[in-house]
């Protein structure tokens, strides 16, 4: 055995190993609100089955990014594609409004930090979950009810409360209804905006556990925004660090948390209790 050996030449043009194309590709996303630049030239790729975390302080552009990816808002500049039959070659921002809404309903699920944004508080929980299927054209009450039940069960929501409206539920249960609603159409992409922020620590752990299990069982592709580095370490494979509307660093989760390169990321990681 030779240690400290001669140095054999190796090909310098080694190809990429990953042959699968990314599910999500966003390029050059730029967004202004009036004179304020909320996001500047942000690009990302997310591969099937991957969880990509987005971290940064308030105002860094994390939530703007999620709203753009959810097609709730349009960027000033930027291209966004999903590798899904029928829409593969299309820039989703360039679609007519009706088609864009169709893509959002069918292929993208979202869980907001604030359940009031994602739920109708006075409808029943099962009604909230079934709403997306209804919009997508399902009219059979029995089918809607069964789908809502399945989705709530997958989100580990207590089924004896499926007809209670979200306004009478705890924060943790409201997040489970949101999750069930997001999953009802079996979307290709799940967007999570601070899904456990504001929950009690013990409830946070159970919601995280549910997310981890669902991700594994359904091989879901997820973009997760969180300022909680513990949540990011638990769920994310890769991380984007945002500051002032720009991505300042990106990398594997353990590399970003254990060997941050950018001064801002070092600050962020070292500020963790």
């Amino acid at each position, binding site marked *: *055995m030779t240690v400290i050996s001669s140095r054999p030449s*190796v*090909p310098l043009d*080694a*190809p990429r*190993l990953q042959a699968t194309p990314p599910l999500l590709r966003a390029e050059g996303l730029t967004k202004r609100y009036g004179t304020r630049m909320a996001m500047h030239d942000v690009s990302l790729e997310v591969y099937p089955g*991957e969880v990509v975390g987005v971290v940064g302080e308030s105002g860094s552009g994390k939530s703007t990014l999620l709203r753009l990816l959810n097609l709730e808002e349009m960027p000033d500049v930027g291209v966004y594609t999903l590798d899904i039959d029928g829409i593969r070659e299309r820039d989703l921002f360039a679609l007519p409004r009706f088609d864009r809404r169709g893509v959002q309903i069918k292929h993208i699920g979202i869980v907001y930090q604030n359940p009031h944004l994602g739920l109708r508080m006075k409808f029943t929980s099962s009604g909230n979950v079934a709403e997306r299927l209804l919009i997508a054209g399902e009219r059979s009450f029995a089918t809607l009810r069964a789908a809502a039940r399945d989705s709530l069960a997958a989100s580990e929501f207590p089924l004896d409360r499926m007809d209670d409206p979200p306004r009478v539920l705890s924060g943790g249960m409201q997040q489970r209804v949101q999750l069930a609603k997001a999953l009802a159409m079996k979307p290709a992409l799940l967007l999570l905006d601070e899904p456990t922020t504001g929950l009690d620590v013990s409830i946070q752990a159970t919601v995280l556990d549910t997310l*981890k299990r669902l991700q594994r069982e359904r091989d879901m592709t997820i973009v997760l925004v969180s300022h909680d580095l513990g949540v990011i370490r638990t769920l994310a494979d890769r991380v984007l660090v945002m500051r002032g509307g720009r991505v300042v660093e990106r*990398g594997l989760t353990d590399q970003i948390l254990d060997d941050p390169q950018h001064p801002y990321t070092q600050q962020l990681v070292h500020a963790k209790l």
Partner: protein
Amino acid sequence: MANEGKDSMPLLTVERLTKDFHIDHLQREIGVFRDLSFTLDKGQFLLVTGVNGAGKSSLLRCLYRTYMPSSGYAWYTSQHGHIDLAHAADVDIALLRREEIGFVTQFLRPRPRVSALELVMEPLLDAGWDWEEAQLHAETWLDTLNLKRDVWQGYPSTFSGGEQQKVNLARALIAERRLLLLDEPTASLDRIARAALVERLASAKQHGVAMIGVFHHPEDVQHLIDGEISLTSVVLNGAVEHVD
């Protein structure tokens, strides 16, 4: 191209690998190791030696890409092709971690409300195994490492250091790998678990698994060692100081 002649190439060829940490708030570089070169073939076992701070664990972390190498190359012959671990895309490193390269430490990162048994099963579940099959396999590993059966369903955050270590070793070793990076895996194990672990490593080596390891008690694995990477110097403020 990717797969040409891959059988004749070493599994790993490290060339002039260097790691410095740049700590922004200190405004300084902290050197760890510099210009390290070595090769590793299938089924070979390299022991990394050196004093505290010589960069033994950092070397393993650079190869796993938990640390970003500062310069140099680490060419790895994967089943998918030939790739430089120091510069590969994150998604490719993630793929290799799922399928080929394992990192084995003594420290467990427990997750709230996940049992010891399920933590060990997880790498197999992630790889698509059935629950029952994964459970059977995990139980065998926990048995081998001599973890008491009555704690298998417990949450490891309440375990002793030694018990956590056993869970972590089982979790790290349960899925088959082509390259194992071992960071003091035997450090505080009891005698039975230590012997069982060394036996498993010997068996993996026989099956062609390559290993690079830092060991607190190198005598445990003496019979497995094919070569040594000696980090005999530490780099301080850019100057190399020899310490032996």
